[in-house]
């Protein structure tokens, strides 16, 4: 099955001859891509020329970082591969954060960048940057197309690699002369990469070992991650958990895969997770990771994570198993296949004592929103969003305190309804990702929860919202500071608030108005509920600037590297 991509495609007698740029567009159309995000420039003019009357919807962001985060939000919401285009040099380097973000969170993206002509590569030509070299560590795979005859095969491979197995971003760098070269267009050959086996079959013995451990366990917990979203395993997880009374904790990326309002749900574990979630893991005798990375923000001190439990780990990426934590029961393979096998092997068994314990832990340690003393509590605004949205909206967050409050307080009921930059923690992700979400699923309302800091990192995308009239509902938790960093400085650096307070911030409601987006600022706790409701219920885009208590802290908190129950008491 060897296929040499360098061998020119045998042109069938009636194959059309197209320019490389036209072939890219034709390929995208033939592959069912109907939405692109991007920003033009000198080395992609041929590609944009081919797009001009192609009928593909192209969303013109106002910064390449906005374009790639939008493609990311589109991919996370729809489950389809997001596509972004940028020019060479600065256009390509502006994609770097978005690539790293998608790589960390395993989001399927294809980035197509223009490059200086092959004849100029390596000579420091105008707007030349080695994006191939730059992007090696932050992509799943990448290409520099040197030979026009390889172009179509490479595109087919790129989409296949991005979306198969553990998904990720793939970059295809296309020199201008490759875009203008004439090539025969035919449907690309079936992709076969002998060195790449995206979803190996699970080993039966491994699944049997897990089934046996699960059957014996008295206090089992599923720790669900983004892999459950990718493989659409929510129904299997729900069934297995309900049949066997397994409690479920969800990573930030999995939020909603298991309904937050389910009696067996223990929400988010880890640094800012629920106290009950961490306490339950601490008591559990079997923690089963399902498509999750055992991230350091969840695990903390590895020696003190789940001290009474055997740890099982199911993952499609064998390199994740045993990476941070030593695992007693490794299971490599596609999560959905493993769960289907498990459903056959595990006999339903009620565990009333454990179920009661889970319910009791939640009763004993609820999230309490402190009463407002003058200023609006940011948590109150976020809870109001949860109540009004009622699990129906896509909630997108930026990064910081508001993100953790959203993770704690938004009740998500379905997968792909909570988007957040998990692994990289990228400020500026939220606004463009929300743009992408509105395009993925136009019927579903999209609410952005942002901080005043992160909002200013891609604020230019307000123009994109206006231009395409995208119904993004923006809520800014405006504490006048870089809240999360300020919190660390308060707790661990004697309140020396070095460069975390904004003595000046623009009036975001006025900014919204200038961009033609109906906007409002509120400061009175009594206004929150009605203002959030009005925002969500008014069609079209809207912005609500909520002036909140500046020195509120995200609690509980387990300081970095500490043990599971080392809750920081302020």
């Amino acid at each position, binding site marked *: 099955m060897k296929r040499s991509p360098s061998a020119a495609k045998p042109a069938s007698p009636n194959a059309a001859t197209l320019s490389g740029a036209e072939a890219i567009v034709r390929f995208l159309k033939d592959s069912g891509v109907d939405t692109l995000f991007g920003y033009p420039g000198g080395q992609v003019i041929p590609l944009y020329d081919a797009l001009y009357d192609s009928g593909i919807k192209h969303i013109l962001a106002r910064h390449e970082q906005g374009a790639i985060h939008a493609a990311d939000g589109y991919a996370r919401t729809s489950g389809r591969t997001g596509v972004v285009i940028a020019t060479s040099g600065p256009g390509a380097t502006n994609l770097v954060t978005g690539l790293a973000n998608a790589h960390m969170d395993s989001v399927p993206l294809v980035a197509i960048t223009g490059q200086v002509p092959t004849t100029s590569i390596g000579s420091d030509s105008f707007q030349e940057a080695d994006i191939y070299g730059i992007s090696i560590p932050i992509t799943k795979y990448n290409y*520099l197309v040197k030979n026009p005859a390889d172009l179509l095969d490479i595109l087919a491979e790129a989409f296949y690699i991005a979306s198969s197995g553990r998904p990720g971003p793939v970059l295809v760098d296309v020199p201008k002369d490759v875009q203008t070269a004439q090539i025969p267009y035919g449907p690309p050959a079936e992709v076969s990469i002998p*060195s790449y086996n995206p979803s190996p079959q699970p080993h039966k013995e491994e699944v049997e070992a897990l089934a046996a451990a699960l059957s014996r366990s008295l206090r089992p917990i599923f720790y669900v991650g983004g892999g459950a979203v990718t493989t659409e395993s929510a129904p299997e997880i729900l069934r297995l958990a309900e049949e066997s009374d397994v409690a479920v904790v969800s990573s930030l990326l999995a939020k909603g895969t298991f309904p937050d309002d389910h009696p067996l749900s223990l929400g988010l574990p880890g640094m800012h997770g629920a106290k009950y979630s961490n306490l339950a893991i601490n008591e559990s005798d079997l923690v089963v990771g399902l498509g999750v990375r055992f991230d350091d923000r969840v695990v903390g001190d590895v020696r003190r994570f789940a001290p009474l439990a055997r740890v099982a780990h199911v993952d499609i990426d064998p390199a994740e198993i045993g990476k941070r934590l030593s695992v007693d029961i490794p299971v490599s393979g596609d999560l959905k296949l493993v769960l289907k096998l498990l459903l056959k092997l595990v006999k339903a068994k009620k565990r009333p004592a454990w179920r009661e314990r889970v319910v009791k832990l939640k009763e004993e340690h609820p999230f309490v929103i402190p009463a407002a003393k003058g200023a609006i509590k940011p948590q109150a605004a976020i809870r109001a969003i949860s109540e009004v949205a009622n699990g129906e909206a896509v909630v997108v967050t930026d990064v910081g305190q508001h993100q953790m409050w959203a993770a704690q307080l938004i009740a998500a009921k379905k997968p792909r309804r909570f988007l957040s930059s998990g692994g990289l923690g990228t400020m500026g992700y939220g606004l463009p990702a929300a743009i992408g979400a509105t395009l993925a699923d136009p019927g579903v309302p999209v609410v952005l929860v942002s901080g005043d800091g992160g909002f200013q990192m891609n604020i230019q995308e307000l123009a994109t919202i206006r231009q395409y009239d995208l119904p993004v509902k923006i809520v800014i938790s405006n504490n006048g500071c870089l809240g999360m960093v300020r919190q660390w400085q308060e707790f661990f650096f004697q309140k020396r608030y070095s460069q975390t307070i904004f003595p000046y911030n623009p009036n975001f409601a006025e900014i919204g108005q200038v961009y033609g987006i109906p906007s409002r600022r509120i400061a009175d706790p009594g206004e929150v509920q009605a203002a959030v409701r009005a925002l969500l219920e008014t069609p079209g885009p809207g912005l609500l600037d909520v002036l909140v208590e500046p020195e509120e802290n995200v609690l509980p908190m387990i300081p970095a590297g500490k043990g599971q129950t080392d809750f920081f008491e302020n």
Partner: protein
Amino acid sequence: MKKIISILARNRPGVLSHVAGLVTRRGYNVESIAAGPTENHAITRITLVVTGDAKVLEQVTKQFRKLVDIIKVDIVPHSLALTGELALVTVSAPPEKRSEILNLVGVLGVKIKNVGEDSLTLFISGSARSVDAAVKALYPFEIKSMARTGLVALPLEKGEEEED
């Protein structure tokens, strides 16, 4: 623990960058890396000598396997591989030392690649261990410059065994 990792990879532009990049990115300790063609022009063999405990080595191999271009990754024990390395060493060889060095050359079985006015360049080949030993024996003479290829290894078919 020093181990040989033998990798077969698709011979594509950039494959070595991907492999070498992974090594630095993940903070692994690599002593040498050598790459070259195999009997199949579409496949490259890359041999690495790495140090690390068993856990690190397991992670290294898993991370290599994950690279899209990597076909096969093996940790090969010395006893189950044919290994070899080349070195070019220029030692200072003033007239009064020359005969001593030439003596050593005979004992070590190395070749003389170049004879300079007051230096000799020696060509050493053999298993990693014999190259090490030869280089060490040359230490007492001033080594002016040296180039080593890094170890290459060919895992043995089952049944074959090499005494190293």
